[in-house]
């Protein structure tokens, strides 16, 4: 396929993905908006007013970057895992497999589709947060780069999950038992300075801590970890997971007999 044909194939996958999640917006766009609004009201307003300052900022301002990042992570992941697994389940993935689309275009298309939903949710949650607090961007490039890379990373993760999943239960296991605990323990609601030394050490091996703090640094200018180390870590994870995803695709894992 020539570069123009490759671009057509890539954009076909992306447009299909965007149309899919916008067609079922009550399942894809509305729930995170509702959930995050509840977080803002309960944790930010009601409980936050009694918590006081965190990291030098009022509690609402402190948790907003973490909540935005949480929404981006879960949506990017969920979009790819559910979409690609549904295609496997309905066997419509065969439409792609019989076509000349190269594996890297398939991966890029699905990851971009996942990013479109993840970043779209990020924008929605950011706009909602403006009803509760004022956002002052400390470092815009850092905000943009961190949120883009994090979204891409979890979209790739969702793709691998979808390839390995053999039943619908497998699609929800990772988000429920891995992503959610890591996100909650990744400094969304607190600074790890509050933890005893041992648990601070444990937190440092949680990759989501770096993403949340990198993003928080971009918005507030404060972080529990070096924000540039965060970026490097995200990039390394993207490269490693993409290589795994391409290897699985080439082997036909879960999609070819």
């Amino acid at each position, binding site marked *: *396929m*020539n570069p*123009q*044909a*490759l671009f*057509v*194939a890539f*954009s*076909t*996958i992306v447009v*299909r993905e965007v149309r899919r999640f916008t*067609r079922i917006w009550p399942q894809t766009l509305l729930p995170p908006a509702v959930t995050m609004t509840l977080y803002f009201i309960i944790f930010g307003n009601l409980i936050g007013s009694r918590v006081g300052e965190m990291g030098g900022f009022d509690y609402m301002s402190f948790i907003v970057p973490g909540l935005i990042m949480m929404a981006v992570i879960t949506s990017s992941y969920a979009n790819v895992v559910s979409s690609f697994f*549904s*295609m496997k389940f*309905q*066997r*419509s993935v*065969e*439409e*792609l*497999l*019989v*076509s*000349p*689309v*190269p594996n890297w275009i398939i991966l890029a298309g699905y990851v971009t589709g996942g990013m479109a939903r993840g970043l779209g949710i990020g924008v929605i949650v950011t706009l909602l947060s403006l009803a509760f607090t004022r956002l002052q961007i400390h470092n815009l490039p850092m905000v943009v780069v961190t949120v883009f890379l994090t979204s891409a990373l979890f979209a790739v993760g969702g793709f691998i999950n979808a390839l390995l999943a053999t039943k619908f239960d497998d699609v929800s296991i990772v988000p429920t038992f891995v992503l959610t605990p890591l996100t909650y323990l990744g400094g969304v609601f607190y600074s790890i300075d509050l933890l005893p030394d041992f648990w601070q050490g444990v937190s440092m091996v949680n990759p989501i801590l770096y993403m949340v703090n990198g993003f928080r640094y971009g918005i507030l200018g404060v972080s529990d970890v070096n924000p540039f180390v965060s970026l490097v870590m995200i990039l390394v994870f993207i490269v490693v997971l993409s290589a795994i995803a391409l290897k699985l695709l080439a082997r*036909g894992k879960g999609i*070819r*007999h």
Partner: protein
Amino acid sequence: MTNALEIEGLTKTYGSGFEALKGIDLCVKEGDFFALLGPNGAGKSTTLGIVCSLVTKTAGKVKVFGYDIDTHLSDAKLNLGVVPQEFNFNQFEKVFDIVTIQAGYYGIPLKKAAISAEKYLKKLGLWDKRNTPARMLSGGMKRRLMIARALVHEPKLLILDEPTAGVDIELRRSMWSFLEEMNRQGTTIILTTHYLEEAEALCRNIAIIDHGRIVRNTSKRELLQQLSLETFLLDTETPLAKAPHLDGFECRLGDEGVLEVDVEKGQALNHVFSQLEQQGVKVVSMRTKANRLEELFIRMVESTTPAAESITEGRE
């Protein structure tokens, strides 16, 4: 003439250890209408699955219009259209979208894809349903949708795996006409089918696969010439109490008093009728008991052992 499909020494062993293909050689010429026949589990779908990249082969070579799927997979796929056995489209997408999205996967821009989609949806009688979600279509419409989707990028080789399974007779006939027209226009067609009548009506060359081996690969004419015995069903004017004795022929009364007569190759049917006339039996209609190809197929498959050698004979 170019070969549309060349298969050499193709083997497939699944993870469970089941050996689905045991070294298949097959060649389909450009412009052919070719049938791959075999009982369930014989290896038909595995063979076609490997050609279409839905199944990974264990060993062997596959070329589509000269493009080796190991080294030029993309070029091979560009020449290939696939209609699978089971519905494999997104049931929630609209008919027109399913076809144009498939074109997009082949790198065809939307404008051009829309023209091609309109052409094939109209030819297959689905244009009125273009904005209908696929799940709302009848079974026959879904089959036609898969054919339109397979043709949208104008492939030179069309592979159909049981294309008329579960389709009523009228629709099956109209699909036959469509496929014959496609073949006349130059598209090479390979199909698998359980309706041997379908293979007999449409195909010029036939391969029979059993236990993962090709047991026959020849022209339909050659194959049918090998029939040594046919059974004819004779409807008599008045019902017979018992089967008459006919010199040189086996005969018996079948269901609903129909007279069944076995006629071996070289025997003249006139002798049957003259003897019946002498006995005062008036025949009002006659037909063959079963599809000729079906009889031959059953005999071949029954006599096949896994060790059978593949045979390639004269082809049209």
